[in-house]
């Protein structure tokens, strides 16, 4: 009997105490609903500089990319520090889904045309689903459309083709810092001589550090494993800034690569940073939203 009375008292006291707690925050009554928080905006755009970043354009978004590389800054005043010469790549990227994007481009270098697909396989997330990295698969094909170097011999169209495959592994370490690793394979159907490899293996690293919300420092370096390409070629190193204004992203950079397509900057970079063979360049990205993909309210 007495035990019951105590139990009863205790019950009232406890429910009263509980009611008191409720005064703190009503929302605590519902408990925290665990959600998955996907890392977003690891990079400002889908390119670090020349290389692909782990970002994709969203579904239904068309991204018009204008890329420019000027001549070498060590050309001196006579070449206006390289600004007299310009090479261009014009490109269109499109998001088929939030995870799959495709793109095409045309460059003045080798009068080349390229096309690519990039698929985001894993997305970095925290909360309900935990995934430490973002992993994308990337493949591109490039067609060299220049006149044949040796027109007198029998030439095949397949000799114009170059393939690049990459695994893009990245992590946003903090809101400002993101780093990437890019194991890369480039296959060239036709090469200059039998002494060099048709298939070239490389490892790229890249990253960005935000300086302010709208300004970021970026870099990328592509290390080509030794004894695969001719001695005149060197590794591509680029350093730049991403500047964002509304619907545009401007990327300004210095690089020792002239070509902007995968096999060009990975396997055909000739500039030496130490010798001042540095090209100033920029990429401008302008996005157009072609499709309204907003979710509708839950009923």
């Amino acid at each position, binding site marked *: *009997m007495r035990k019951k009375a105590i139990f*009863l008292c205790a019950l009232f006291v406890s429910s009263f105490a509980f009611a008191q707690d409720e005064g703190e*925050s009503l*929302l605590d009554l*519902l408990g925290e609903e665990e*959600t998955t928080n996907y890392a*977003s905006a690891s990079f400002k755009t889908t390119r670090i500089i020349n290389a692909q970043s782990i970002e994709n354009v969203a579904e239904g978004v068309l991204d018009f990319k204008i890329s420019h590389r000027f001549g070498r800054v060590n050309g001196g005043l006579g070449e206006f520090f390289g600004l007299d010469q310009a090479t261009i790549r014009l490109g269109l990227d499109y998001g088929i889904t939030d995870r799959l994007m495709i793109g095409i481009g045309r460059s003045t270098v080798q009068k080349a045309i390229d096309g690519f697909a990039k698929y985001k396989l894993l997305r970095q997330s925290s909360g309900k689903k935990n995934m430490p990295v973002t992993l994308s698969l990337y493949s591109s094909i490039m067609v060299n459309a220049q006149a044949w170097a040796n027109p007198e011999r029998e030439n095949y169209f397949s000799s114009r083709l170059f393939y690049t495959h990459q695994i893009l592994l990245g992590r946003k370490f903090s809101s400002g810092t993101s780093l990437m690793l890019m194991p890369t394979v480039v296959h060239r159907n036709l090469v200059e001589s039998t002494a060099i490899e048709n298939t070239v293996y490389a490892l790229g690293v890249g990253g960005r550090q935000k300086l302010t919300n*709208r300004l970021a420092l970026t870099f990328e370096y592509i290390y080509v494993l030794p004894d695969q390409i001719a001695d005149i070629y060197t590794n591509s190193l680029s350093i730049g800034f991403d500047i964002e204004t*509304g619907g545009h992203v401007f990327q300004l950079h210095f690089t020792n690569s002239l070509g902007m397509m995968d096999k060009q900057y990975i396997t055909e970079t000739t500039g030496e940073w130490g010798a001042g063979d540095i090209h100033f360049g920029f990429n401008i990205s302008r996005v157009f939203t072609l499709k309204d993909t907003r979710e509708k*309210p839950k009923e």
Partner: protein
Amino acid sequence: MKTIVTILLFTLTTALSAQTKYFTRNGTVTFFSSAPMEDITAENYNATSVLDAETGAMEFSILMKSFNFKKALMQEHFNENYVESDKFPKATFKGKVLNMDDIDLSKQGSYPAKVEGEMTIHGVTQKIAPEGTIVVKGEQVILESKFIVKPEDYKIEIPDVVREKIAKEIEVTVKTDLEPLKR
């Protein structure tokens, strides 16, 4: 016998307290910005809200990343540059319906409501006093309100370049269908 009384009392007290609170996890919060160059709307269908009908106490919480924009890049900029969702993931409101005594939640109808409280956006807390309507429809209690939020009051910086695209006063519309909270 005593045990039965205990159980009865227990159920009664919990039943009573359950009746007085209403909640939702998918309330709608939208905002509209009208500027010379661009009109922007964004919707959030995942607002969490609780109303204590006894005291009139009311709370809201929304995840900033759950706002949907038509333009994906705009959504990214909203989270990255303006409200800084990584640093301040939620916006909250904690307040009180001042005229709760005039509102009879057991009777169908539409009641004007005066609300006062503190809203926190971008880590900055401001006192606001929005007016709204409480509609009673069967078991449901629907809260509706429309009010103005000034980004500068919450230290949300808008650079001059986009001044023509983002309004100084942003219209926020809240509509939540609350259900009785049962435990």
